[in-house]
């Protein structure tokens, strides 16, 4: 029994503590913080989706927000259409957005569209053997294009003003059926937990190990008979759907979406969350997102409390802290803890092996 407990890696304890914290959080916090934390949890799912791609498979997507925003905009457009928002000038949705006329259809589209985008980008990149920094640069360009596209297609996206929605449920666009912040918090927490468990299962499976092997040494893998492109495409699509889901949740919490959620801005933010937390572990992505988003909320209100002119400088302060973290511990907060733990265990194991060998030679 003790052995079983000892075998559980340290980050699983942190995960458990984290979920315990999230589950009890609304009971002693004000509504404002419940609302903020709901948004952060949606962002955590987004960070997890990037971690699968970047941390585990080694594909650094610098435009992951495209998939997040694609999901979010589907909900936004659907809401605006169904509730006849003031800026809507079109009578009918184009055929490829026809599903958005129903609430369930919109949710379905919000998962499907990111998956399709990921599939196309993936087929283009992985069959063309585009790797490393070129993958990052192309995804970055895609984010830039998506941002411009959304601003320009103002008929459906309301340009740079973005779309405001009022409902706060997962599926309903109606303005009357609205969950309280407290209720909606737990809906999101449940989805986050499900996504987290899915990630754990996937990454502990053989497929997860193959993905790690792609990160470590893709060339070697082909000599074991693997075709890495299929695996990369698979994880890109899965990750895209997760990003789309997080986009949906975020729009539902926030009540609005605009071009920053699909562009380079958010794409960079999520990279920073995962880098600071520690890529290659689910815990790192979750902890990084919470720490930085809470810091952002606290700092921005503290700075604007000092004086109105001072308000924008919180970004400078946070940026400096992030630079220091990435410079001092390049593996991120959780990555460093896991590594220290692994080193410690290795020492113990080496000691045991040495003792065993001594016994063997003395007999």
């Amino acid at each position: 029994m003790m052995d079983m407990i000892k075998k559980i890696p340290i980050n699983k304890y942190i995960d458990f503590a984290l979920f315990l914290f999230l589950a009890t959080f609304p009971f002693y916090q004000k509504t404002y913080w419940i609302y903020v934390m709901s948004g952060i949890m949606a962002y955590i799912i987004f960070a997890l989706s990037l971690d699968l791609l970047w941390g585990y498979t080694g594909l650094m997507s610098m435009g992951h927000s495209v998939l997040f925003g694609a999901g979010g905009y589907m909900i936004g457009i659907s809401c605006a259409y169904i509730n006849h928002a003031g800026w809507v000038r079109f009578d009918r949705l184009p055929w490829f957005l026809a599903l958005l006329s129903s609430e369930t259809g919109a949710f379905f589209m919000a998962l499907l569209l990111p998956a399709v985008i990921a599939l196309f980008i993936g087929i283009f990149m992985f069959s063309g053997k585009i790797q490393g920094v070129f993958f990052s640069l192309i995804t970055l360009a895609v984010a830039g294009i998506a941002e411009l596209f959304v601003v320009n297609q103002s008929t459906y996206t309301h340009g740079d003003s973005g779309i405001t929605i009022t409902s706060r449920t997962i599926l309903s666009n109606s303005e009357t059926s609205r969950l309280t912040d407290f209720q909606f918090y737990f809906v999101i927490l449940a989805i986050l937990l499900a996504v987290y468990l899915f990630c754990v299962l996937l990454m502990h499976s053989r497929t997860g190990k193959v993905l790690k092997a792609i990160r470590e040494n893709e060339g070697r893998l082909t000599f074991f008979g693997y075709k890495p492109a299929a695996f990369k495409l698979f994880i890109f699509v899965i990750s895209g759907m997760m990003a789309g889901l997080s986009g949906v949740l975020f729009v539902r919490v926030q009540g609005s979406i605009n071009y920053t959620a699909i562009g380079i801005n958010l794409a960079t933010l999520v990279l920073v969350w995962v880098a600071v937390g520690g890529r290659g572990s689910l815990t790192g992505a979750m902890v990084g997102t919470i720490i930085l988003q809470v810091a952002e909320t606290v700092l921005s209100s503290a700075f604007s409390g000092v004086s109105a002119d001072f308000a924008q400088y919180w970004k400078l302060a946070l940026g400096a802290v992030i630079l220091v973290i990435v410079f001092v511990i390049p593996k991120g907060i959780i990555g460093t803890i896991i590594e220290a733990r692994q080193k410690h265990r290795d020492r113990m194991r080496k000691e045991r092996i040495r003792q065993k060998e001594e016994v063997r030679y003395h007999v």
Partner: protein
Amino acid sequence: MSEPNILLEVRNLSVEFNGFQALTDVSMKIYEGELRVIIGPNGAGKTTFMDLVTGKTAPTAGRILFSGADISGKSASDIARRYKIGRKFQGPNVFDNMTVKENIEIAAEGFESLWRSLLFRKSKTFKNKVSDILRSIDLYDYRHFMACDLSHGQRQWLEIGMVFAQNPRLIILDEPTAGMTADETWKTGEMIKKLKGTHTLIVVEHDMDFVRQVAEYVTVFNYGKLLAEGPLEEVQKNPEVIAVYLKED
């Protein structure tokens, strides 16, 4: 006694990189169950030969036949999966930030496609197989270590173990003892000798002590050409071979 089956046959194989003739008109046969050692000075084309057989590079001329099927120019993953040729690279080429056990598991045959890997469940036989391989390369106690934390020699063994896990019909070992201590080299030789008869192996090696330990039949390469072929004692007496290669000893 009947002639043993030919497992690998190369016919007039040549390859050229930007005008540089790396391999010229090489023909040879490897029989099933044979342990063939390939020797030759640096730049003789030994590694290039391995690259051609395992699909890393495509030949400019000539054919590679593997148990009758033409595999010249096929992709590396096809050759590994369908024709089952396993290769250990020069200098350990493993998955660094994964545990020793995970390295072996990834290499294990039969689950290379995405679909099969998704449906994979760790069976008892699979676990036993992995443990057996770990023991045979003397790394069972190190199974939870990251591959990058092993010593150089242990990393070489790990890669040899990974090739075993592939259960290939032809095992290619490119300098398996590079950077090993004399003790480790000897241990590696014993590992390889154990496979003799049941497996077909091609071993490229520089270390003459090791060659003497394992080799019976040797092929000598020089300047991209096949220089000599025959039993070790005979080749060692060949004046041409002595002139280009063995004189340093």
